[in-house]
């Protein structure tokens, strides 16, 4: 019987037998830690491997993205612990000006199709957007990986999700993945990998693939894989300087743990209700719900395309009185593009508060936390109780968030197209 793509990637990184349920030791291509978890990684490393060097400094990175620049002393201390360790070890730090680690690693041409990358960010499976195997892990795993270049791994089963059907803007990749999440919930892909196929997926730009892969975490999935298309290969080739990139395909006779096809023909804008990312409804059902706060950004929807979408709707409009609208670009590069293209000016003039790049409110970090009684609509990925503050958070696309910002109540962005 053949192998899934995920199994093939793992096979390329181990000498152990690869089959679902088998435990293998994987050789890693990259490992990273960030400002949350990073100090614990250093602490674990220094306790367990005192005085020794990391396994391979060229494959080891720090990416600071949660609380950037540090807004309190504990985070400032933790970041400095990482910088000091990096200096001694000769490891590269993408510091507090650079943005979200997973995005930075892709922009820097470090993550390529078929690679295995682990880090302290639970959304590492975003790297499936470029056909890599990304997995978030805890401090001990990453400290161990810094030293040995390996991790143990139970080969997961794989679920095949095929998405077909066409839809038009303002519906977007976020609406697509919320619709998929509504079907998979947190059960069908829990502890498994997801391979995404279908014409709708093939047509997504890199930003949309990032959105799709990021939400696999909310399905309980270990990793997501999207076969790299022309745009992705060109992006990876240009960024890495590599002329030839290897693309793997699943074997034809492969057997998946679960297969499902989802039709998104004429997909309408979708929204997750507070408390659970998988409690998804069409935006129209919630239309009219008053909001006090709007957040654009995060590793799910912090790309330039997302801010451009928001700007197209916010142009010549104003954020409603009483609404605090906040935008946080995923990376410095995204921020630069917003500056050059005038998107930043449109957001500024519409009354959006634009911050420097980073994660936003997801880890009590920069701007984006809510107070009790606040109702927020956010383009991020999680709305568990207390995650983005004491208020209630809805999850939606950049277009829905922009329309909602203008009206001060949940609004189908179709009104502004």
């Amino acid at each position: 019987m053949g192998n899934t793509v995920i199994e093939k990637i793992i096979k390329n990184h181990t000498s152990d037998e690869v089959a679902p349920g088998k435990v293998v030791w994987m050789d890693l291509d990259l490992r990273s830690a960030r400002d949350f978890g990073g100090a614990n990684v250093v602490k674990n490393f220094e306790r367990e491997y005192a005085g020794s060097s990391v396994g391979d400094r060229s494959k080891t990175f720090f990416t600071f993205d949660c609380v950037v620049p540090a807004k309190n002393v504990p985070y400032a201390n933790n970041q400095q612990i990482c910088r000091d360790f990096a200096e001694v070890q000769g490891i590269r730090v993408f510091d507090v000006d650079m943005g979200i680690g997973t995005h930075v690693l892709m922009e820097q041409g470090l993550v390529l199709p078929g690679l295995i990358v682990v880090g302290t960010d639970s959304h590492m499976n975003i790297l499936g957007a470029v056909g890599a195997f990304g997995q978030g892990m805890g401090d001990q795993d990453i400290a161990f990986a810094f030293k040995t270049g390996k991790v143990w791994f139970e080969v997961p089963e794989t679920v095949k999700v095929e998405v077909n059907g066409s839809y038009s803007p303002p519906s977007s990749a976020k609406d697509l993945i919320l619709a998929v999440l509504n079907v998979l919930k947190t059960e069908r892909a829990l502890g498994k990998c997801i391979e995404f196929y279908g014409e709708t997926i093939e047509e997504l730009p890199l930003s949309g693939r990032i959105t799709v892969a990021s939400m696999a975490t909310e399905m309980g999935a270990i990793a997501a894989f999207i076969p790299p298309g022309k745009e992705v290969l060109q992006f990876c080739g240009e960024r890495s300087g590599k002329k030839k990139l290897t693309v793997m395909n699943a074997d034809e006779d492969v057997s998946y743990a679960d297969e499902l096809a989802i039709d998104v023909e004429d997909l309408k804008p979708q929204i997750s209700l507070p408390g659970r990312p998988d409690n998804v409804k069409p935006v129209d059902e919630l239309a009219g719900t008053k909001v006090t706060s709007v957040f654009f950004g995060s590793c799910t929807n912090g790309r330039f395309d997302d801010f451009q979408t928001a700007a197209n709707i916010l142009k010549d409009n104003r954020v409603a009185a009483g609404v605090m609208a906040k935008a946080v670009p995923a990376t410095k590069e995204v921020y630069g593009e917003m500056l050059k293209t005038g998107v930043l000016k449109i957001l500024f003039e519409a009354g959006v508060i634009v911050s420097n790049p980073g994660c936003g409110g997801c880890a009590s970090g920069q701007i984006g936390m809510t107070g009790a009684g606040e109702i927020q609509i956010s383009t991020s990925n999680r709305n568990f109780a207390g995650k983005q503050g004491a208020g209630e958070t809805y999850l939606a696309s950049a277009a829905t968030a922009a329309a909602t910002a203008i009206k001060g109540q949940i609004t189908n962005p179709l009104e502004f197209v």
Partner: protein
Amino acid sequence: MARPKNIKGKVWVIAGKDGLLVHDIDTDQIFHNSHLAVTDIEKMGQYAFGNLKGWEGFPEKVGKSDIIVVGKNFGCGSSRQQAVDCFRSLGVSAVVAISFGAIYKRNAVNSGLAILAIPSMEVKPPLQSGDEIELDLESGNVTDLTRKVVIQGNSASKVELDIYEAGGLFAYGRTLKT
């Protein structure tokens, strides 16, 4: 010396007012993101379940060697190790769940916290808070000694048992010939 694969302790069933196990308890409910800068394990216990409605006072009530029983997808969300280490900090000896979030499961194994999944467990579990139970990590058997009930859970894989017995990933790593 290898740690015992049999674990006995008093149970805390993490259920709602309806008596049903709580599902999808995420890492922010276990160890809220406002405490992420804490790196000292001794200081983590006080925040356990600090954001889980109805269980905020858990750290004061739980005793050493107690066992927690929870619902599906326990520990979903963040990769933060503190969501495991806060229980080790309190002396909790094991967590039994219908299922675990993938990263949480890894973190627990690596940290040396015993975990046991019982996919067949009903939402209204056959054991109650205060019961004395015994886990056999090797066979996956969970015995409620108070009620004389045996429930079959998943046995641990060899690497999970090896890491557990060694006392965690680092200790286990030192036994490898790499």
